[in-house]
């Protein structure tokens, strides 16, 4: 009895062991490769695309909403790959000599999918709508500059500013500035406008199954494609099935198996294998602020500039990012501005590298000379603990989370005790860990089309309360003056000069240090061509895409 039981047990154990060994030795094979022979272009068809995060509404202030709304809404301008604004709904634009009045001339004959005309009146209404709470990100950009919008005639919109804003055409190319039907905004319920905004874009929404996908149909009456489009006319494909697949492993597996035609946000470890298997890949390094660390300058150990600098000298950020990012995620040394942004300061990026001697000297000078049982530094009985909450799965993806663990590990060598706290999206939105007593380091990115992102992130507080978007809680009149000068500078060189000055200031005082640039990546299967990434934020554009046989 016992002998046969042991025989049975051994057999099963052997089977399990074999399975484990097979798992270790095996490699995933997937369907891939380019189709043999010449391609044949297909008209129509359904493209299944696996995106990653699902927003609460199609249109709104979050980048995921910008990506989706750009399929159904057109904007005034679109950026080319040099970051220069090109015509879209606006055929031409000019600014008055005092730089306070912008005049946009619209393309004629454009209608919304509900039949109403897309005229200057509709555009003016939209601009007002955004700044009155219709789109929080749009109003962040325009706040402090926008005064009013008027329709001069059916095709001409005038935007009145209170201060000069030379990069207005670039700014309104982002998905947050999509134009919706005035009638729809005025007469439909909030829920309807959330799930199915009416625009003039290449697609219309057919059905949104929450948690699964949103199906878009071609708009056959599309006349307003942007100047940067690679083909003229309505979209070639008939249907776009935009699936929500938050798990990166499943997305990649589905692409390999041929179940989806393209996927978003390719994990770093799959970048080379997918390319080797013949999948096309596109990569867009987002402009604006990269994924960076901002230090709390108002409360806690980082009020001392030496401690901030010591933290920066403790890290070999390049090694961490290059290893964990498999060479695919770009290391970014500059905190406030990413490398693909015009006006980037290389000097700021090169400010800090690994130098433990310097870091230790600075901490000793700052008084953190004691050590506790685990080797962390202490001062007056208090451990050098710094709290780093991060938006797990949302702001910071899996690769990013591993990179933060690398930061934690390296900072430990100098004596910092970094406490990593993953935060859910809803907690983040509820404002958790957003006030000075709750965190010491903030990690995040903020997309923008110019280095004018400095204006958003380094705004000083009002009435003693820090600005909610100033993650270092840092008020400096000197820095602010430089940034404002840059915003209103009339020549590009002058503007960039001021912006660089601001970045160097931030680096010198170790207010924010960069980790990696935010990537918008796509991997595309062999049956789909013509997908491009729009150049404001790297979102996928399918209006030029087509299937091949």
């Amino acid at each position, binding site marked *: 009895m016992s002998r046969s*039981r042991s025989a049975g047990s051994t057999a099963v154990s052997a089977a399990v062991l074999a399975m484990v060994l097979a798992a270790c030795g095996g490699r995933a094979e997937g369907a891939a490769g380019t189709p043999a022979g010449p391609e044949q272009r297909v008209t129509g068809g359904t493209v299944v695309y696996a995106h990653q995060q699902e*927003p609460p509404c199609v249109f709104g202030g979050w980048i995921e909403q910008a990506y989706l709304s750009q399929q159904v809404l057109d904007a005034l301008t679109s950026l080319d790959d040099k970051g220069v604004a090109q015509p879209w709904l606006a055929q031409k634009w000019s600014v008055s000599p005092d730089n306070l009045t912008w005049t946009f001339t619209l393309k004629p004959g454009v209608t919304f999918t509900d039949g109403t005309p897309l005229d200057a009146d509709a555009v003016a209404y939209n601009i007002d709508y955004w700044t009155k709470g219709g789109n929080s*990100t749009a109003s962040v950009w325009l706040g402090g500059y926008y005064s009013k919008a008027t329709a001069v005639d059916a095709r001409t919109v005038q935007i009145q500013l209170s201060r000069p804003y030379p990069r207005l055409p670039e700014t309104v190319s982002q998905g947050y500035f999509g134009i919706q039907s005035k009638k729809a905004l005025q007469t439909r319920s909030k829920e309807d406008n959330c799930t199915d905004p009416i625009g003039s874009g290449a697609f219309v929404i057919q059905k949104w199954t*929450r948690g699964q996908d949103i199906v878009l149909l071609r708009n056959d009456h599309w006349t307003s494609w942007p100047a940067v489009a690679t083909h003229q006319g309505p979209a070639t494909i008939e249907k776009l099935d935009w699936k929500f697949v938050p798990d990166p492993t499943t997305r990649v597996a589905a692409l390999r198996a041929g*179940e989806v035609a393209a996927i978003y946000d390719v994990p770093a470890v799959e970048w080379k294998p997918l390319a080797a298997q013949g999948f096309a890949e596109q990569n867009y390094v987002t402009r604006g602020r990269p994924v960076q660390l901002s230090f709390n300058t108002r409360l806690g150990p980082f009020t001392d500039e030496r401690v901030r600098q010591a933290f920066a000298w403790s890290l070999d950020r390049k090694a961490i990012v290059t290893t964990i990012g498999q060479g695919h995620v770009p290391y970014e040394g500059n905190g406030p501005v990413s490398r693909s942004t015009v006006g980037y300061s290389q000097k700021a990026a090169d400010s800090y590298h690994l130098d433990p001697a310097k870091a230790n000297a600075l901490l000793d000078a700052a008084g953190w000379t004691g050590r506790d049982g685990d080797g962390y530094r202490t001062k007056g009985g208090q451990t050098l603990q710094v709290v780093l909450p991060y938006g797990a799965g949302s702001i910071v993806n899996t690769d990013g989370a591993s990179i933060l663990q690398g930061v934690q590990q390296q900072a430990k060598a100098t004596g910092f005790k970094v406490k990593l706290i993953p935060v859910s999206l*809803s907690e983040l*939105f*509820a404002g958790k860990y957003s006030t000075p007593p709750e965190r010491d380091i903030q990690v995040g990115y903020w997309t923008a089309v110019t280095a004018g992102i400095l204006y958003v992130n380094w705004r000083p507080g009002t009435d003693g309360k820090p600005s*909610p978007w100033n993650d270092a809680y840092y008020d400096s009149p000197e820095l602010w003056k430089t940034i404002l000068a840059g915003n209103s500078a009339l020549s590009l060189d002058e503007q960039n000069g001021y912006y660089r000055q601001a970045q160097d200031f931030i680096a010198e005082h170790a207010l924010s240090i960069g980790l990696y640039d935010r990537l918008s990546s796509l991997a595309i299967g062999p049956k789909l061509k013509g997908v491009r990434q729009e150049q404001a934020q790297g979102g996928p554009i399918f209006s030029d895409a087509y299937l091949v046989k």
Partner: protein
Amino acid sequence: MTAPTAATAPAAVATAPAAVAARGPVLLRRVARRAVHAVAVLLGSATAAFLAQQALPGDRATAILNTRSGQSGLRTAQELAPVVAQYHLDWPVWRQYADYVLGLLHGDLGRSYQEFRPVRDIIADQFGATLTLTLTAIALAWVISVGWVTATAGRSGPFRAVGEFVDTVTAGIPHYWLGIVLLLVFAQWLGWFPVIGGTGPDGLALPALTLAVPLAGFLGQATRSAFERTLDQPFVLSARLRGLGDGRVRMRHVLRHAVLPGVTLSGWALGATIAGAVVVETVFTRPGIGKVLVTAVGSQDLPVVTGVVVVITAVYVVANLLVDLAYVRIDPRLGDR
């Protein structure tokens, strides 16, 4: 989910002798009593759900507004007013509770914090897929366990030992691990099944198998001990003496008695399998309320969480009620023999 608590087995067996005593009006009374009990349990679970919603730390109106707009920050009272009005957050607690319970009776499960849709719609959209998966898994588990036990129970030597061992091992396998292994082996490497399932039968196979195998382990254990006990009964011996083959004896005579504990467990199994579906739907990216639930827990969208929990509880209570009634019918001891 590994071993179940076999609490339903003692309960059902305890009540069975009572039913033997007298049927008819006693049965009716028993049914009525259990129905009342079921309603009380449902009310209790709804109350627990409501209390959970009230217990959410922080200001609910701010959380709702921030999640909707995609921007965090402090809000003015003016911005919060419509949200407060919509969710009745300014009513006294007892009034919110009464409103909640009355709403439940009408099938209104509240509104999601994140979406503009009522929770009922969110659940209705996804529940069918989960129910399909659960029922398929239970059916599959039954087939596997009955087949396996019939073949291996009561035999001597290695068969029985292997049978018992497999039951124990499979009952203890975590869903998340088994799911990943099956996904890797059958979908990724062999390509027999799709990786992202969808709702067709192709996409049902691996998730259902993941849920069915541990459940079969459990049902197998219960069925096996009953099977072996029954094999020793005198009437089985007499059937053999009459010349019936071993297979026929097992299938026709023994099985009927052996499945009783399994039937009782099936009521519990439905609830536990729906819970297991939460994990399995995550592993296989299959639509269903499991995914809805995990997302809602992560984003602290409490109306959705409590709505899903209440619905599953209701299904579970109803299923147990039906199983209790079915048990009375199936149990041959209570029949006309």
